[in-house]
């Protein structure tokens, strides 16, 4: 990680950010997530890797941090509910995302997938990680990767195909 040149570094950050944006569906928290990932990676110099392994490792860190954040949010929501301030359930597609997505129906369908399915499709189809690397990054056995991949693709197919295509711009803000 130390010997990446500026261009490689930029590219790596951009890919991490893309993963984070589509994991969190919120550019703001995606930046925080990338930042936290790099922090953690830099603080663990002894575990440093190179090349492809480095990329997979960074995705691993990012995904773990994302899950931790989710857990915290759930806890937070439970506390709020305890005090009688129940938050409405998170919409499947955040408002923030609609700004990003705009007319792209494909992305709207993708954004509706479950977190875990989105994460896997991002790693396998977009980032080109091998099944083994994806399994490591998500902390699941390779068998689970395959079955989850199958479910994710089926779900995405249904969302893109089955549902009538939404009008290009559903909401203007």
């Amino acid at each position, binding site marked *: 990680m130390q010997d990446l040149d500026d261009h490689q570094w*930029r590219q790596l950050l951009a890919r991490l*950010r893309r993963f984070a944006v589509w994991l969190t569906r919120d550019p703001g928290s995606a930046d925080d997530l*990338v930042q936290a990932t*790099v*922090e953690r990676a830099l603080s663990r110099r002894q575990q440093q890797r190179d090349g492809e392994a480095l990329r997979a490792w960074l995705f691993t860190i990012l995904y773990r941090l994302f899950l931790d954040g989710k857990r915290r949010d759930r806890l937070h929501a439970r506390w709020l509910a305890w005090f009688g301030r129940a938050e409405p359930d998170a919409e499947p597609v955040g408002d923030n995302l609609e700004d990003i997505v705009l007319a*792209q129906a494909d*992305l709207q369908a993708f954004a509706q997938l479950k977190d875990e399915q989105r994460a896997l499709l991002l790693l396998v189809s*977009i980032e080109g990680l091998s*099944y083994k690397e994806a399994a490591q990054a998500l902390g699941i056995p390779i068998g689970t990767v395959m079955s989850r991949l199958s479910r994710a693709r089926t779900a995405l*197919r249904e969302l893109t195909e089955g549902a009538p295509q939404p009008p290009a711009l559903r909401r203007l803000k």
Partner: protein
Amino acid sequence: MTRLIPSEDELHAYVDDRLDAVRRAEVQAWLASNPQAAERVEGWRADARRLRAALAGYAEPNAGTPVNRQHLLRQARQRRQRRWAAAAMVVMALGVGGLGGWHVRDVSLARADLPMADAVQAHRLFAGSQVLDIQARDAEQMRGWLQRHFSQVGQLPDLSGYGFTPVGARLLSNEQGPAALLVFEDGSGRRISLFLRSPGEHYRRMPTGQRVDGPLEARYWSHGAYNFALVSQADDRRGAGVGEALRLGL
């Protein structure tokens, strides 16, 4: 021939281009004669392609994203420091609040446990003293003095039926405002005192009650704008009667 029928996993691996060349050709051949499966696989592949195209733009380095390692490290350090500072503040606030709260609890417990403790204290300090603010040998004089200082108080009853005559009175004060100690004495020199003051936040209005504190006994009640306490010797049997008379009169 089972080797020729690809598993679901293999179909995905075919889409992701993770099969070796030989197997890849076999799967391709199999798909050619299985249009239904081919359609499925083509759908997955099309989805992936569209997704890649749609997301391609998101891998562009964003202007808002810091790209400089030193900058990132510096931010990380600042963030850590801020986090520590926040944690320290919380610990301090908890500490101050906790200790303070504990202290207040002690104080309020002491007060809550001993209703009209100040009355007993005043009796100890002043009831035996000859130096009272006023020397009032007759009940009428005492009544006048009381009315002057405490406008909302009722009629001070005549306690001569119990053998007590007024000795004098003393004006006191605490943080709640003025308080008064009225001292009475019987023929044999035994003294009782009546204490009254406004209820305050530490001295709340309280239910009628009594308690023994060492050699003294306090009977206390709230009425009108004041809290009252009659302090007498614990072995003085007249305490109950005098207390009752005062409670009715004031």
